[in-house]
């Protein structure tokens, strides 16, 4: 399954599963949970993925983004 790290700028994706419980916990607080749709706003090659949800922009490091499984919309 593709992860957040596979997204390209402009992609929309549905969050399917987050492997690490700590990551899932932190994401929940930020308003990112399984079943939400996010947009990829920017990519740093072999670095963080910047996603947008509502009015919020969030940068997620590569090690984390590889753990967040998504479904392309």
């Amino acid at each position, binding site marked *: 399954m593709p992860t957040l790290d596979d997204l390209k700028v402009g992609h929309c994706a549905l969050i399917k599963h987050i492997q690490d*419980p*700590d*990551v*899932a*916990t*932190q*994401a*929940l*607080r*930020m*308003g990112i*949970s399984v079943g939400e749709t996010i947009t990829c*706003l*920017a990519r*740093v*090659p*072999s*670095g*963080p993925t*910047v996603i947008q949800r*509502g*009015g*919020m*922009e*969030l*940068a*997620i*490091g*590569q*090690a*984390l983004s590889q753990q967040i499984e998504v479904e392309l919309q």
Partner: protein
Amino acid sequence: MSSGRATVASDPHVCSGGPHCSTVSDIAIDNATETIALAGNPNVGKSVVFNALTGLYTNVSNFPGTTVGIPSGMMEGNRLLKDTPGVYGISKFSEEEMVAEKAILAADKVINVMSALSLERDIFLTQHVIDYQKPMVVVLNQMDEAEKNGVIIDIPKLEALLGVPVIPTVAVTGEGLNQIIPTLSQARVGNPMPDCPDPEQLKALEDNPVQRLHIYGLRRQYINALVHQVLSNNEAKKQTFSFSRLLGKLLLNPVVGAISGLMAMVALYQIVGIWISVNLVDITEKKLMLGYIVPGIQALFSSFLPKTSALYTILAGEFGVFTMSIQYIFGVLFPLILGFYIYISILEDCGYLPRIAVLCDGLLTKIGLNGRAVIPIILGFGCVTMATVSTRVLTSERERTIASTILAITIPCSAQIAVIVALMAMAGGLKAWAVFIGVLSLVLIVMGTALNKLLPGKSTSLILDLPPMRVPSLKNIARKTWVRTMVFLKEASPLFILGSLLVSVMQVTGLLGLSERLLAPLTVDLLHLPTQTAQIFIMGMVRRDFGGAGLYFLAHQLSATQILTALITIALFVPCIASFTVIAKERGTRESVMLLAGSWLIAFAVGALTVRAIELSGIL
């Protein structure tokens, strides 16, 4: 509105000697009728609310985690208001979260600041505190920006659903802030989420990571439904094109980001390295200090002390307590630090720093850090002491150890920049710069990589909220610069005076000469430097820039290779007394002693290797 009297205070657990550590008088705290914690996510305008309520200028920041320590102040009605670090939740994911949790749970009431722009995110903390049954008032800030973006919030409904008073505000203009104090008496325990256990049980459950995830999931579900009922968007008003968003996005593009980052560095070098440290310091130090103030002080002392006496040398001689320290603090350091902090405050306030953090994340991951560490590292170029305290923004102990080590050893502070710039010109300009930067970067990379491999555990990954880009506010910049500069002067001045006292006593008693001879094997044999360079190493321990300055006075007797070697060795050499004290407090005795020994070893080893490499290659 403001009761005026306020100081920055502290919790012994939080403020281990950090900068914001003066205390609200104990009597004031004893007399306080109640304790109120100010809580909220980063970048919601919490500090502005704090200032409005207490009259104190705290450090307002557009980057999460730059408030260090817990500022407290007295507010109307004899209430003690405690500001807490901006956090996304109270889940013990970082030291800041623990600090915030402790302050929130210990308070009688909570003022929770939310941003109308990020209601969905901010409300998680709000509901969390409600679930802990703390009497609360919600301040819904940034209403103006929300309106501009077409966000409509049904405030009466939000109030009803949360079960606590909600005050809409625009903190930057002060709108609505005068409602906070009158509303405090109506603070109440809100509506906990359905089937929420009582606070003690809840806390026990949330201490277990698996249970916590489950509870957080339920809470998120509950508040998402809640937000859905109160939040609507006025599509017509919604800006389709926002310059701030576009700029923010553009700066995250690797190419644009690299170019703008480079430009920012060149600008910093030009402003701090050339305009201030060469041009301005030329006026403040040479013309003002050496032209008027220092001769004035010397004349004053010579009126009652013979110029040849030991006491005169100690008090008003070349390294005198009243001459060298005043000349240095006000002639050199003050303009430098001021300029540096103004520059950093601008970058911080406009929202550029977090974007640099995102771009650097990939590189920093390789040395066991993440993007967040750019803050301490950039601050380190200003003053390593302050920067060491700010490593608290990092999530794990492992990252804090790596960052503190890198700061103490490889980052030259702004006080050194002036002498480095001047000495580089003598040592061959561009080529010397290339060697200097190359050697320091190499040490940084090797050391970081080694620590990342050797230290147990693993470092955390970046999760960073990017605030919108905005035009920096003059008021914020002035405030931040002022607080930081004052803290720096308060922290540095006594150590400076102590340092000059030490050096002049050593000079008078002949210890300076003795130590020069004792250090000769290191300076002469290992580094191929003349004997008298030993004094620059001794002075470098007092303050790093003392070393550089000492070198400057000796420079005319040295070759280009010798200048460069000495400069690299001093740059890597022990942190100054001030930062060492802070490292010892922040990182503990064992780690600080290892760091001290390590820095000596690395400095002399790298210095010895560099001098031989330069001599062999004949590069200079």
